[in-house]
């Protein structure tokens, strides 16, 4: 059944906030949303129960029960851990800085490069062999080399760069190639210059593909940062925290580190999907 949806843009502009609240409540009590929430809760509860059962069955210190990990999760945020002398906030901040920097580098380079390679056959023929050589190499495989050449500050950043770069590049190229030729012809017929064609037709059409590339890249980026920090990372990092705790046998703390990574990954990819939806809506309105 279709529920009546209040559109902020089309109703009385004097009371947008009230309309927003109505819309939110309407959505909240949508049966589909309630069903999704209930299923999510059941799923997470089942996960925790299975974890507890396996931990009890194994009775091993290497798989601490959820309660112990929850306690460790709280403790690691309260002060420095003895192994690294840093709190979890410090580790998260250190990882985030590397992550953001690597991501920005990848974004700034991959997007224009992808647009050019998608648009120009010569650029594609020139760049494709190089891209195809490097793309299959897992970013993690570069880490020992990067740490020696670039050190433990820029090394992990470049590992993330590599992880994010290729999904973004590939998606942007694919996006450019997927632009409807009728649109292109129509724009040309109407006298669009190449820069205008690029700005008004190609780039907007590519944005949804770019966002997909970013979402994929973000997931890979977290894998890279954790792996890079295993090898060494100045200023700490969640990966560094995890490996140090496993080295000294604090498995409950190590699991707390894993949960932090899961949350960070979930938040960043969730944020990316949110932006992706917003951009899609925006593009639809153009």
């Amino acid at each position: 059944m279709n529920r009546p949806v209040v559109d902020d843009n089309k109703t009385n502009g004097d009371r947008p906030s009230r309309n927003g609240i109505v819309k939110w409540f309407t959505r909240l009590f949508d049966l589909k949303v309630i069903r999704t929430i209930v299923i999510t809760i059941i799923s997470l509860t089942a996960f925790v129960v299975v974890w507890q059962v396996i931990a009890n069955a194994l009775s091993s210190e290497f798989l601490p029960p959820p309660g112990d990990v929850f306690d460790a999760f709280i403790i690691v945020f309260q002060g420095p851990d003895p192994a690294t002398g840093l709190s979890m906030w410090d580790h998260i901040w250190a990882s985030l800085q590397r992550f953001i920097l690597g991501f920005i580098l990848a974004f700034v380079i991959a997007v224009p490069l992808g647009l050019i390679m998608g648009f120009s056959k010569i650029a594609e023929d020139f760049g494709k062999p190089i891209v195809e050589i490097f793309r299959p190499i897992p970013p993690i495989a570069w880490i020992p080399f990067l740490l020696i050449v670039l050190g433990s500050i820029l090394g992990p950043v470049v590992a993330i760069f590599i992880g994010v770069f290729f999904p973004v590049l590939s998606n942007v190229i694919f996006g450019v190639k997927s632009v409807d030729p009728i649109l292109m012809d129509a724009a040309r017929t109407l006298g669009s210059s190449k820069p205008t064609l690029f700005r008004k037709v190609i780039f907007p059409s590519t944005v949804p593909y770019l966002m997909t590339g970013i979402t994929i890249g973000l997931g890979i980026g977290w894998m890279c940062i954790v792996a890079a920090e295993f090898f060494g990372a100045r200023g700490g990092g969640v990966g560094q925290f995890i490996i140090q705790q496993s080295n000294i046998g604090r498995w409950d703390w190590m699991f707390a580190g894993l949960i932090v990574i899961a949350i960070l990954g979930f938040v960043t990819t969730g944020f990316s999907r949110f932006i992706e939806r917003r951009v899609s809506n925006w593009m639809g309105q153009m």
Partner: protein
Amino acid sequence: MNFKTILAAVIVAVIVIAGIAGAYWLTQEEEGNVVYWTPIAPNLQKAAVASGEVDGGVAWEPYCSDGFLDGTTNVWKWSDELWPGHPCCVVAVDNQFAVDHPDLVKRVVKVHVEANRWIAEALSNTSSANYTMLLEMGADFSNRNTTVIASSLEHLKFQYEFDQEFMDGLEVITEKYIEQGLVAESKIQERGYSNISDFVASFINPAWLVDIDDVQPSETILGQVRLAYLTGDVHQLARVVAMNTTVGGGENLFVKYGIGIIDPNPGGYANGGAVMTAFAGGQCDIGFLGSPPAILQHLNAGVDISLASVVNTEGSAIFVNPSITSIDDFKGKTFATPGVSSIQHLMLLDYLTGQGFEVKQA
């Protein structure tokens, strides 16, 4: 230019500025009477000093000798100056494996003793063919040249017996870990020990070395042992010697004593923590590793092992970039360590705090 174009330009500008600011933050360090440490694998530390990534490091041999012989680093303190006779590597045995295969454990210990005796003889005559062969074995294993190995051997002591000094050293290490909060004091009782001395006395098992000379070679292979070791660590040269077929007279010493060796991680493990994780995961039966990670993971995680023999004492060093010439130069500098669970890390921390520095992770 429409609004969306301006907005896009602003977003790109913000992203670029955020990137530059991030890079700036990442490279900043606090001022003060602080020395920093950062974990870097020993084999990468020399390169890290050369590139200016760190200002010094602490590692085991041959990485200390390697750096100072080619002029990349200066040795600031050899570990025998910091802590004479300090405990280092040991042979650890999975306790269940020891219960199931006591004969194999005894035989591995016998091989270790034989290898140590061969090394002692080779070292007693530096012009002998065996000494040259020892250097070559070390060079092949660690991927360093024989000059580096010769220097390394001057700074470490091979030994297989537990003496009082070694046991006292293990007690000191345990006390320091409790002091630093790396091990909760309650863990001692939780693991069934009444105090630290009781723990050390129970953790080592010198019984394997008793009547070791009675163990005879075997014509047949009596069983397989999964043997773990550290990558390129010259401290563990006895294992390399034992694997050499020339030393064993046509077959390696393990085979000579009826043991088939399985390498659970060809090339070795990066550090003792990784060897302990291999024990915990049931991937190895016997392992060569540093005593500190063995203590840490036994107490913290209950990894069920005991120590069957000593491998070496000493053999590490704090080294610095040659531009560092006085202890005052240490201020604000960053040192690489193999990781929190290593004896090298513990010695660096002890030395620096003893010199009045606050020590922080970089």
